[in-house]
């Protein structure tokens, strides 16, 4: 179990080592820290969005050891020693991910709030299954709710990204 210190309020703060987008972070956190808040507030990675906060909308989707999860339902302590990828980790060497390129090309997001989550769900799909069917794409993003555009452009963009990689 992680080491801890007791702060001046008598609350334990636990030591965690978490790799986010390839960078290793060592932090002292309280047990009640949720991953989504840790990413946004402790690491200033605000690409990951908070919305429903109960695992329905998918706006907070990140990859945990390569698998998409709702970061609003993950305790940061449970991620100790593990690897997280957020939307900020998609672009590499100043080059956008093919999914990001295609999202723009197809004007897939409208307000954009759901886009980081959909990008992560789509990324997880393409890592596992580089040539998905339309049904597989729809299923992969079924846990991501978009309240503006509907899903048609998203599905087209993801299929196009798969075809272009």
């Amino acid at each position: 179990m992680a080491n801890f210190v007791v702060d001046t309020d008598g609350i334990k703060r636990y030591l965690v080592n978490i790799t986010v987008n390839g960078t290793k972070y060592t932090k002292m956190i309280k047990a009640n820290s949720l991953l989504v808040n840790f990413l946004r507030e402790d690491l200033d990675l605000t690409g990951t969005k908070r919305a429903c906060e109960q695992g329905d909308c998918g706006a907070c989707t990140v990859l945990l050891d390569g698998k998409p999860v709702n970061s609003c339902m993950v305790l940061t302590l449970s991620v100790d020693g593990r690897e997280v990828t957020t939307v900020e980790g998609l672009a590499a060497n100043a080059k956008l991910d093919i999914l990001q390129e295609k999202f723009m090309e197809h004007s897939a997001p409208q307000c954009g709030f759901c886009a980081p989550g959909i990008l992560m769900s789509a990324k997880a799909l393409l890592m596992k299954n580089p040539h998905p069917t339309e049904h597989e794409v729809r299923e992969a993003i079924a846990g991501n709710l978009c309240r503006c555009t509907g899903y048609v452009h998203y599905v087209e963009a993801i299929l196009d990204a798969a075809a272009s990689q």
Partner: protein
Amino acid sequence: MYLQDFEYFRPGSVEEACQLLFTYGFKAKAIAGGTDVLIKMKKDLLAPEVLVAIGQLPQLKNIEYIPGRGVVIGAGATHNDIQNSKVLHEKYLSVAEAAHQMANNQVRNLGTVGGNISNAVPSADMPPILIALDTTVKIVGTKGERTLLLEDVFTGPNQTVLEHDELITEFVIPDNGFTGSTYFKFGLRASGALAVVGVAAAVKMEGDVIKDARIVLGAVSPVPLRAKKAENFLKGKQAGGELFTEAGIMASHECRPISDIRASAEYRKDMVRVFTMRALDKAVNEGHV
């Protein structure tokens, strides 16, 4: 949204976890995937002072076939672990498919089958198919371990026979000779919706004759319900459309649904009729699907 303060333990073994639960009593709560516990904490339905994290215990993760015992599923297996399990695809595709029908991909990567059963929501997708296959549950506590039929674990909505210091550690689907099984979930949308009605069926066939049958209904009573009259009615009879229709009617009389935001009791009863019929037809004719 922020959670109240609590202490966190990540024990290295089930025994250590049970000991912690025993020591801290009702102040403590076990947490596996967190998809139920954390949401309840956010909604102030739970306010544990101590969380005992068991979700990453590697000894609870295995899914394997052990000749003589059956298919063993560790309680810490996530719904996606089950959905993607080669063992289950070979032996009981119906169980993998049921796991796939739960919630959405992100939730299935977190939520565990042990947590799903311990949480005991009447509309849960895993209990009907597992009960239909005569699954047993191993429960470990500070006073030792016991094995029960999954069917006997539930006592009411959100209630089970689990003592405060007890944890489910594994499920075993015994080699029971069922030739076919399936689970039908009827929800109001394909993803992320709770079941309005869930129906699982398992059958042992000898040629055209049904030697034994299980029909288990979800979301239509306080606990997953076996339609025993319909099961008995099927035994020894030649399988066929009319027989399934009649069994469907019997099952719909046996269930005790409530009306709620998702459907009326009358509608649920009628859907039990329809899906019992379809589930039997599929289990008889298509194997474990």
